[in-house]
């Protein structure tokens, strides 16, 4: 019942930008403890001055400024970041279509993509914008998005995505991962990947199941790592492979990053389901090595059958980031687009039910930023930080994570819109 023509530019005008003061915003200021028990989160109303995309001043008391926005006592939180999503390739904005049971293997899916992508590309720029709109409605203004690079799309999926991002530049930013969805060698994608790697806007060299798709772990990872090194990019590889091949892939990437320390802190494995099936001893070894190599894990937080050992990874110091992945496409139709919902899912899945644990879970929605330190000191917002924030109808972070309340306003680089 929907067509692309029904998607319009429906973004509200900016409520504020440039230099302004936000008054009556609720900030978290500490934890209330009773003995050893953390009872609640302390909050107070503040004023926040924004200038040139940054937070200039945070204070309580009188406001003497011409341009004042009333924050209406809403809680101010860092804007959300979706760290794994495919904005370029979605069915969002097209008539409803469920996944098919006929396409069972990755090769079935590649064949299907080869068939549908030419059609999807015709409207992908507009629908990418619509998807960003959905995400913004839930408070997300930044994404790490993968974009397809394979012989069917060529550079077109990237180009359409860039067009959409350009249109959304006041309210949304992204980092881009060149994603050889159809394999480097299974389809002839190596040269296309080399071309994509040279593009300045591309931040990461992607990959997918070196064994599962190309049937060769080392050759594919060597190619990926070399491309990242040559072009000074990061790495973010989709790894769904389980068992020995999955684990071999993780260890080989750890080895390569060890040999090329410039990749440390810039290398990620998305999904990495194999970690969900390891016994404690091997998992501990892998987690320690991932930490040492500064390789992060990006997860969409699966819960059907396989559960990722996120608490163990965190305990060992592995960087864990979260994203929606598929929102509505031919892979999955279940994504909400809501990062707060992901944080809630994690809290429920991993039993983070206390005020403290819930408050810490917020970082999975914000890409790591938390208003309060673990000790309960105010660390955000503070002068000099980016003015990427949102206002939410909640009394504290813990409530926001647990209840997934409505996001009332979102600001990107200081550009504020009421939602």
């Amino acid at each position: 019942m929907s067509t692309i023509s029904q998607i319009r530019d429906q973004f509200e005008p900016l409520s504020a930008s440039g230099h302004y003061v936000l008054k009556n915003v609720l900030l978290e200021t500490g934890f209330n403890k009773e003995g050893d028990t953390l009872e609640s989160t302390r909050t107070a109303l503040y004023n926040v001055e924004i200038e040139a995309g940054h937070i200039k001043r945070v204070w309580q008391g009188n406001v003497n400024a011409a341009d004042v926005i009333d924050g209406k006592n809403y809680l101010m939180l860092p804007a959300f970041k979706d760290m794994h999503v495919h904005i370029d390739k979605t069915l969002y904005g097209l008539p409803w279509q469920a996944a098919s049971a006929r396409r069972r293997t990755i090769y079935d899916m590649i064949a299907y993509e080869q068939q549908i992508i030419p059609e999807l590309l015709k409207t992908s720029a507009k629908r990418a914008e619509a998807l960003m709109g959905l995400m913004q409605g839930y408070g997300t203004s930044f994404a790490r998005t993968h974009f397809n690079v394979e012989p069917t799309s060529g550079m077109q999926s990237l180009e359409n995505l860039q067009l959409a991002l350009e249109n959304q530049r006041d309210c949304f930013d992204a980092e881009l991962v060149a994603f050889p969805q159809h394999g480097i060698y299974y389809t002839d994608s190596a040269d296309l990947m080399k071309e994509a790697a040279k593009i300045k806007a591309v931040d990461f060299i992607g990959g997918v199941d070196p064994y599962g798709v190309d049937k060769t772990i080392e050759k594919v990872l060597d190619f990926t790592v070399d491309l990242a090194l040559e072009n000074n990019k990061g790495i973010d590889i989709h790894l769904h492979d389980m068992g020995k091949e999955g684990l071999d892939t993780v260890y080989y990437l750890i080895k390569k990053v060890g040999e090329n320390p410039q990749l440390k802190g810039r290398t990620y494995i998305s999904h990495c389901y194999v970690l969900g099936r390891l016994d404690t001893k091997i998992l501990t070894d892998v987690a320690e090595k991932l930490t040492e190599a500064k390789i992060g894990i990006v997860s969409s937080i699966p819960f059907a059958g396989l559960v990722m050992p996120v608490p163990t990874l965190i305990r060992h110091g592995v960087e864990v980031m979260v994203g929606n992945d598929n929102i509505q496409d031919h892979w999955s139709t279940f994504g909400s687009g809501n990062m707060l919902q992901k944080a809630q899912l994690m809290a429920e899945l991993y039993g983070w039910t206390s005020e403290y644990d819930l408050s810490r879970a917020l970082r999975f929605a914000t890409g790591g930023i938390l208003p309060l330190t673990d000790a309960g000191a105010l660390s955000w917002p503070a002068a000099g930080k980016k003015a990427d924030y949102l206002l939410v109808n909640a009394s504290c972070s813990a409530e926001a994570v647990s209840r997934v309340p409505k996001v009332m306003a979102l600001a990107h680089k200081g550009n504020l819109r009421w939602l």
Partner: protein
Amino acid sequence: MIKNNNNQSDRPQGLSRKTFLKNTAWTLIGSVMTPTLLKAEKGRAMPADNRSGMEKEIGSANRTLLKNVRLETGFEYDQLEVVSTKTALFCIALEGGKIVAVLPNNPGADAIDAQGLLMLPSFKDMHIHLDKTFYGDKWQAIRRGPGGIKGMIALEQKILPDMLKNSTYKAEKLIELLQSKGSGYARSHVNIEPTSQLNSLKHLQIALENKKSTFGAELVAFPQHGVYYTASAPYMREAAQSGIDYIGGVDPFSIDGAIEKTMDFTIGLALEFNKGIDIHLHESSQSGLKTVEYLINKVHENQVLKGRTFLSHCFCLGRLDSERQAEMAAKLSDAGIGIVSTIPFGGLVMPIPTLLKHNVKVMTGNDSIVDHWNTFGSGSVLQKAHLAAQLYGRKTEFDLSRMLALATAGIMPLDDKGRQVWPVPGDAADFVLIDASCSAEAVARISTVKSLYHNGNPVF
């Protein structure tokens, strides 16, 4: 620089950005339905605040007509696979709380305009505690103390007197939340124990009375603190005679220390007062399974309980191997005992597909929305159906469409063969209008409920 006032009422009329963002492609631009729009339309819609005279007023002369109502009419097949769901627009006539006619669409009719939204049976939350919630009150995270279930009972003894002070108000707020998510009906457990005595029930009954034209409920007398661990038996007897529908229970072994004595009391009370049974069973060990088997035997001995007996949670089924799960499912089916599950995930997963395969009645509910047990409840059973679809890998058009039964406590527009079975004249006029093209989409996307009708009354 401030470019415009952020006062929302100053914003231009029309499709708000929020609506656009949430519904993007399924909402026809410029045709967003609002409750006021609905009520302002011609037809027999009543103002929401004038419901008291409604039941009398809707008589044979008072027919409500809706037009441009989207109904599912069948499945589209490609060979054997259902590839999409066929829909068409209809007029629907309501009268006396019933759907009285399903007519060909007439866009020019003097009728309430459903604007192409999909009509589905309204949702039912079949396990919730409306009487005992923090909802509508100040946020507080749970503070799980020591002592397991008995620690929780001690906590309740401490906090319930305070919670009861405004429990009618909070129950009404919670009902409004459920309604906003498309539920017009709930099976609510009600604490019956020496601390609350019958007050939790009485307070909830006031709330339900206040909401009666827009919300229905059946009540379970729930001895949260054990029948014998605290002296609740006399209160349970009194409750059984005070407008409740089911005799409840909770973990007979771990709370009361004996399966048979508590179960015999529960079953005896149900039989004596002609009530159903709905027992919370969290025990996942041997005692849980023994309780299930004891109940199955008792229901066979007392056939009147068949189809009226339910086990809520019943986690012990999730701990069995698949062969034993199938065996238990067959036994439950045979005894007509239903399972009510919140669809747990992560640590324990319920064998819901196996239960359904054996025709066990499976229903779902939110249980806690926000209280001292759990703070994660959304209030949406459509979200529960979505969760089940994801958890059990039900992602195709057909499989997604079947999951709707969890949200509606069994009713689906199309049967498994794709024949239209709802709505038909005589069905209760309990339905939602939802921003989706079909059931499968509604389940996968947790589509927005735009309107709810209960007993023929527009709720919003």
